[in-house]
């Protein structure tokens, strides 16, 4: 599903954020991306959905090279990759329903399908009661769930999550991770960048550890350290 090949990323200011990354991630896999702050986790995720271009090396998603992907194709790539942002990126003046429906409108879905799929996904994340509320009326964990609902509402084959439990209490974090496992079980590739030692050690999955832009460890059902 995802093949990363001698990937290097140098930012415009000359900072080398990723250095010689090689990584294969199969369909259905659940991968934790761990490492201290500044290790390059977010940078790697940004390269995966083409917010940044590789400096050298390449990323292949379903054999499509992101290095040579024309700009015009980027929206279509992104429709295959759901992203959960740490700061949620919700629209404050739209309801929960509208925030999720937004992603489908962008993809030209018809109205009856939007209604059907949004209702289903809000049930899956347990927000069916809060459909008409505004994000500011919801708790942090609930907002995180809107973000998850929006990321998976069109059943993309890949789901990226950047520190999805960053600002949540342990119980809520655990619930969110259960939800991500459930999504993974529906045959979605899930990659989670996280600092959360407790979660990584508790819910065991493949762990890829980064340090100064390099992979220092890659272990099946590994622990945080």
């Amino acid at each position: 599903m995802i093949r990363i090949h001698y990937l290097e990323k140098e930012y415009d200011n000359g900072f080398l954020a990723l250095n010689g990354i090689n990584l294969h991630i199969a369909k259905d896999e659940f991968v934790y991306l761990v490492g201290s702050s500044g290790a390059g986790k977010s940078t790697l995720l940004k390269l995966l959905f083409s917010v940044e271009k590789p400096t050298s090396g390449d990323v292949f998603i379903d054999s499509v090279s992101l290095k040579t992907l024309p700009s015009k194709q980027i929206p279509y790539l992104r429709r295959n990759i759901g992203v959960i942002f740490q700061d949620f990126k919700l629209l404050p003046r739209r309801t929960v329903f509208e925030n999720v429906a937004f992603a489908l409108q962008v993809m030209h879905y018809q109205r009856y399908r939007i209604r059907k799929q949004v209702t289903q996904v809000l049930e899956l994340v347990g927000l069916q009661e809060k459909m008409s509320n505004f994000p500011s009326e919801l708790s942090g964990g609930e907002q995180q769930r809107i973000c998850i609902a929006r990321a998976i509402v069109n059943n993309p084959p890949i789901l990226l999550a950047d520190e999805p439990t960053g600002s949540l209490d342990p119980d809520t974090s655990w619930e969110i991770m259960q939800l991500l496992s459930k999504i993974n079980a529906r045959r979605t590739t899930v990659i989670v960048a996280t600092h959360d030692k407790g979660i990584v050690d508790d819910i065991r999955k493949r762990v890829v550890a980064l340090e100064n832009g390099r992979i220092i460890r890659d272990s099946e059902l590994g622990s945080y350290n």
Partner: protein
Amino acid sequence: MFGDSFFFISEAFTSLKRSGIMIIISIATIAVSLIVFGVFLLLTANLNNIAEFVTSKLEIRVYLNNSMTVSEIQNFKTEIAEMPSVKSVEFISKDIAWDVFKKSFQKLELNDLVGINPLPDSFKVSMYNGREVKKVAKYLEDKFSGYVDDVGYTGHIAERIEMLAACAKYGGLGLVVFLTLATLFIIVNTIRLTVLARNDEIEIMLLVGATKYFIRGPFIIEGFIMGVTGGGAAVSFLYFFYLLFATKIQETIPFFPLVFDKDKLNSIYAVVLLLGAVLGTLGAYISVSKSLSYENMRIRK
């Protein structure tokens, strides 16, 4: 794509409603710059009208030798009338000329002062083009020096008017380009404010896979609505004030050649409205495109 247009239009109206006072200020700004543009168009149209009017009054007076016979006069008249730049030739006999002259200066009681008619026979030659007056006058004077006593023409004024009209045309063209660009600049910056207010929304749309076309849609509709509204306001303003102004002038100087032709005025108002629509749409396109890039977006942590 029908579903998209529905989405674009409803988004555009939501955004217009949300922007409130901002949108009124923007539309007023657009209206003001279109009014300046329209005033300029009206001025140019009137200047052309005046130039045309004055040019149409241009004529050459050919004063004839007293010794010419009737058939010579007739032949000469035909010869002048056949020149391509001549519109018409009218024979003014010295008697008629004398009567007209006396009528114009009734107070002088000329009959008592001057016993015999001192005026010669003449031709009144009207031209198609004011520019030709000098050339034709000179030609007649040289070629027919045997018949002609003198040739008078209003050439100096003709040349000036022609020059003024040319200046208005070319200088005006430059000014039109400048005003159009200035209006576009104002619209771009006005809509830019509503774009900036929604930058977060644009960023999220791009991240969830929206194409640039899809994001531009509502803004372009919004720009179009603003442009048309501003244009409509400008046209209403121009319409009423031109009417007021032109009527006032006509009360003071009854025969001043102002433009009153409905078709001409309507086409000027149509241009202003159309310009509003085009500039609103184009301005929105430009200002939203500045915010659209699939890459190098900041993803805040």
